[in-house]
């Protein structure tokens, strides 16, 4: 028998996973070389959703970029809106009114909630926990209903504007949010019971895809994946923007940096995001939501119809776009996946000379080979789930 095993002819097998595979939500292709069930080599091919984000931005006015940013991380579009708006405002030198900042925090955190809920739900689904998926998708739908009442769209929100917002929060938003969060917390507890101590779930996630802190930093990890490795870096704490420094929240960190830690970090961040929204709603000050700078932000329709200056500026900004002074800035915000940074270059014309976004899941996806080499083929699924690659953001 031993002779037979020794002389048995074996060779590596190459498998294509994707680009259209149930696990590769977002189209991505893995080229997996297998020795039995063990992964010997792993190659990621991205770019299936590349649509030339930067080229499009360079040929749009500054305002027209917003719909494109929606389609970067399409699970949390408002965070991208906010990041881009803040970058342009930094370039111009605008400080938005207090109420606008609070509303931006509220909608950002709602987006983050939707993103994390989707992530945990989809991961559960792919590992066989269909009930958890249904529960969290219900919660996500409630959050989307809230966002719909704010900006009229569930997915492609296009809500934030340079120097302000499209519109104010609707009446009764606070009470509505309270009710939604009550239900979300119930669902959170249910999913927590279903997954966190579930033997099958733990076995699939624990000690898989481990990333030690120093390596996570070298690979450019940010967001929940970096914090799961035990590095407490969060842009909201490190370099607070908007009003995050006036809000009390914690950033959970993991111990080992395996997939289970990433799951736990996301679960806790769901709670923290709800806390942030509630505090921001309590503190929400009255006042305008737009800056009083007609050359950058339209004034109200009343003004436009009655005052000649407002009318002129409205005409100029609508037809020619706003004029941003020459210069360059980089502005990072904490996206749902990590640091979303906008690097803008302006040459003083009405269009961005360069509009670059730092996609947080791009370096995360790049580290996939590092995390799964030597593991089993079944470990690709949870690792890729917890990386949470979003095609729209990774491929731009």
């Amino acid at each position, binding site marked *: 028998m031993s002779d037979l095993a020794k002389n048995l002819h074996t060779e590596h097998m190459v498998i294509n996973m994707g680009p259209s595979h149930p696990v590769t939500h977002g189209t991505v292709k893995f080229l997996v070389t297998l020795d039995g069930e063990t992964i010997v080599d792993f190659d990621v091919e*991205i*770019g299936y959703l*590349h649509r*030339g984000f*930067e*080229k499009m931005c360079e*040929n749009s006015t500054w305002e027209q970029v917003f719909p494109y940013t929606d389609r970067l991380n399409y699970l949390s579009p408002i965070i991208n809106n906010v990041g881009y708006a803040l970058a342009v405002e*930094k*370039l111009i*030198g605008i400080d938005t009114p207090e109420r606008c900042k609070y509303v931006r925090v509220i909608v950002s955190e709602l987006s983050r909630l939707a993103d994390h809920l989707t992530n945990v739900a989809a991961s559960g689904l792919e590992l066989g926990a269909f009930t958890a998926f249904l529960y969290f998708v219900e919660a996500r739908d409630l959050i989307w209903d809230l966002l719909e009442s704010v900006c009229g769209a569930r997915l492609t929100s296009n809500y934030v504007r340079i120097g302000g917002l499209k519109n104010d929060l609707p009446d009764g938003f606070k009470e509505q949010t309270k009710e939604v969060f009550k239900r979300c917390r119930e669902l959170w507890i249910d999913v927590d019971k279903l997954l966190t101590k579930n033997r099958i779930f733990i076995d699939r996630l624990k000690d898989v895809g481990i990333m030690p802190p120093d390596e996570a*930093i*070298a*690979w*450019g990890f*940010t967001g929940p994946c970096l914090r799961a490795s035990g*590095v407490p*870096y969060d842009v909201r704490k*490190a*370099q607070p923007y908007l009003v995050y420094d006036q809000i009390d929240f914690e950033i959970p960190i993991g111990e080992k940096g395996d997939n289970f830690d990433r799951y736990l970090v996301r679960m806790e961040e769901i709670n923290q995001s709800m806390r942030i929204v509630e505090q921001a709603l309590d503190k929400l000050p009255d006042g305008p939501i737009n800056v009083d700078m007609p050359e950058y932000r339209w004034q109200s329709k009343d003004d436009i119809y009655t005052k000649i200056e407002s009318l002129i500026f409205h005409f100029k900004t609508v037809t020619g776009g706003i004029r941003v002074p020459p*210069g*360059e*800035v*980089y502005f*990072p915000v904490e996206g749902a996946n990590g*640091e979303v*940074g906008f*690097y803008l*270059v302006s040459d003083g014309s009405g269009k961005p*000379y*360069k509009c*670059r976004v*730092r996609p947080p899941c*791009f*370096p995360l*996806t*790049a*580290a996939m080979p590092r995390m799964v080499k030597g593991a089993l083929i079944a470990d690709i699924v949870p690792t890729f789930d917890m990386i949470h690659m979003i095609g729209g953001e990774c*491929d*731009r």
Partner: protein
Amino acid sequence: MESITLKKLKERFPDSIMETHSFRGDDTAIVKKEDIFKICEFLRDDNELLYNFMMDLTAVDYYGKESRFEVVYHLYSLKYNMRIRIKVPVPESDCTIDSIIPIWICADWFEREAYDLYGIIFKGHPNLKRILLYEEFEGHPLRKDYPVRGRQPLIGPKN
């Protein structure tokens, strides 16, 4: 008030730093491309700087300028909570720059992307091929002289 990073860079590499500025609070150093590897290594390893994150790497095409391209690095220091932008002019006639993968491994894909979209060659990159576009794509779409509505047939992989 000049930030510590710019001060130290000027002290250590007086000949390589061409210009510095802090527009809107973003510290920026424009450096010569021959010294980019040395400078990055210094920024990562110096005890008072420790720029351990390579946050972003991209390029800009200043079409019509003397040195056409600029490779832009955004670094972040976790310990000191500082950021810096390093810009390196790259002329079109010699469109190459040293790869910084040995310093920050995550530069791998970012450099491939800059090569893909701008055609900048990163010397020493182990696997410099297109990443977002397909291999048979002709030209580099983010160059300013590439037409906005330029269309190319999608060709299957060469076998």
